[in-house]
């Protein structure tokens, strides 16, 4: 087990983590401020990826694809917020789960109807392809480093938004007492639509960025959605900081677990069994992690309310 491999995997874990953070940040904002469980978040991720692939494929410009992803996802988000989601804020969790599950069905089949069942391809732009040599002699894909950078930048941007702007004040106030800010004259419905669209845009961005390193296909959003929920549960619902910490934890566990657990088992059994058991346990690992966190802190690491 070389150090190079370990560092590469750590970087992969961080990269997975920051992409998860983009998803989780939106989810936790939406749940924290509006009290809404949004299962359709994975669909918004998918919409972003498809928009990026379609536009980039047509124009040849990755940047155009990204812009399209942000636009499509936030528009889709705003649309479903106005038509469906806003009727759910007062509803109980079961209704929210069901309605957003219904949205998943509509989005998935809708996208399949428009684009077909075969995956689309989104290429890494030439300028960002190829490896970069890091200190210590490690070659690491430039694109993944860029992703890490973008993720961190978004994290900083969100922090600045929440802590330093008026919108951020309204968001934080809304998390604490929804009825109060309405009474204080803040236009709640516009605020909510804005927050939902913001979350959607982040999801779409993540979808587009990741779509270049994985394939763009229907159903790509759901595994990420579940991971993102695990992240916000671990981090504590409503906390952006928790979403970040949780995302990095989950990203590292998923990546390092996938590499090391088979290796550990390889010490005891043959390679084939080790790989399969190791892989199985690696995927289980994050759920075990979530379970452990919840047993210790039932509202997550940074969560306040249940």
């Amino acid at each position, binding site marked *: 087990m070389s150090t190079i491999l370990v560092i590469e995997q750590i970087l992969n874990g961080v990269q997975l983590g920051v992409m998860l953070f983009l998803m989780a940040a939106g989810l936790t904002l939406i749940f924290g401020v509006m009290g809404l469980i949004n299962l359709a978040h994975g669909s918004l991720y998918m919409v972003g990826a498809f928009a990026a692939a379609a536009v980039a494929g047509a124009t040849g410009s990755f940047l155009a694809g990204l812009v399209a992803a942000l636009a499509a996802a936030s528009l889709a988000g705003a649309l479903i917020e106005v038509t469906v989601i806003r009727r759910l804020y007062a509803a109980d969790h079961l209704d929210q*789960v*069901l309605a957003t599950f219904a949205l998943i069905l509509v989005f998935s*089949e809708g996208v399949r109807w428009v684009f077909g069942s075969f995956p689309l391809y989104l290429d890494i732009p030439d300028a960002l392809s190829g490896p970069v040599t890091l200190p210590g002699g490690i070659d690491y894909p430039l694109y993944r480093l860029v992703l890490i950078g973008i993720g961190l930048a978004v994290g900083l941007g969100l922090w600045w938004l929440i802590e330093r702007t008026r919108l951020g004040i309204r968001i934080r106030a809304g998390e604490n007492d929804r009825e109060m800010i309405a009474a204080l004259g803040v236009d709640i419905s516009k605020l909510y639509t804005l927050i939902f669209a913001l979350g959607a845009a982040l999801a779409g961005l993540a979808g587009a960025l990741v779509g270049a390193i994985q394939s763009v296909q229907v159903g790509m959003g759901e595994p990420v959605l579940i991971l993102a929920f695990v992240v916000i549960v671990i981090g504590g619902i409503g906390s952006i900081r928790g979403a970040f910490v949780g995302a990095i934890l989950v990203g590292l566990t998923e990546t390092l677990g996938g590499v090391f657990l088979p290796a550990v088992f390889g010490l005891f059994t043959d390679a084939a069994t080790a790989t399969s058991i190791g892989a*199985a346990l690696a995927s289980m690992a994050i759920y075990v992690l979530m379970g452990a966190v919840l047993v210790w802190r039932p509202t997550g690491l940074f969560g306040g309310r249940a």
Partner: protein
Amino acid sequence: MISERWLSLGVLVALGGVALAAMALDTPYTITLATRAAILALAAAGLNIALGLGGLVSFGHALFFGLGGYAMGILAFHAQTYTPLDLGLFQITGTKSMPVIWLAAVTLSALVAIPVGILALRTTGVYFIMITLAFAQMFYYFTLSWSAYGGEDGLSIYVRNGFPGLNTFDPIQFFGLCFTLLCAVLWLSARLKRSPFGLALGAARQSPARAKAVGLSPMRLRLVAFVLSGAIAGLAGALYADLNRFVSPAMFGWHLSGELIVLVILGGVARIIGPVVGAGVFVMLEHFLGQITDFWQIWLGLILLFVVLFARGGIVGLLSPKGGRHG
């Protein structure tokens, strides 16, 4: 409006009638559809005990469905390959006898439901939803890489399992089995709902503070409901695997968990016959709409949205508006 008693009877007669008519018309595929509906209804009826009576939004009931399926798959696999299951300390010979398999499925599901319930019920709200989902996902990924039993490709059981005195290959007889089990579980649920346990559970759902103030323990009540619910879903899973003669990790999938909730809600949450109505409508949509368009799930999604936003009592709620727990 229709009284719930007559509605329930009518729905069951309709389901049985469809199967019998299909037999008379020699369209075995329709019998299979009816069987599918009956089995899904059984699973949903199990979920309804936790969800409808107990108010527990479990997004992981596929866990028990899958456990039942794999209980059947593993036991039947070892029987059909004539190799015993080696558990180190002792060996279990496989079996293709349904009663034994059902017992195994129910027991396994109940045993797993106990620790899962104890852990999950420490949480509420979205945390509970996530934790139940997480447990199902754990098993999903585990079976995905469990190559001994097919992994991602799943496990095929070549021949349907046997039930003493019946020819289970005959579609109508297998349907009869499933239908009988469904009716038995529905009857049990109806009794449960009106029993002291059902009353206490319902109170714990509506006002936990009140339940505690009269000396009840909501946690224990919910745990028992959860375990019962899981055991029934496990039985359904074993039957489902037998229907398709196939078991795969998808039986643990979150999509299935979601579908089970959909079945319950579509039919009418906490109504005894709700799961059957929901399963029936679902299977019909799948079949008929599926023939018209490959994208029938869009319509399912839209119908579901409609029900959630405008018809919260489900189909049974529309036909037989709630008059309380009577019926």
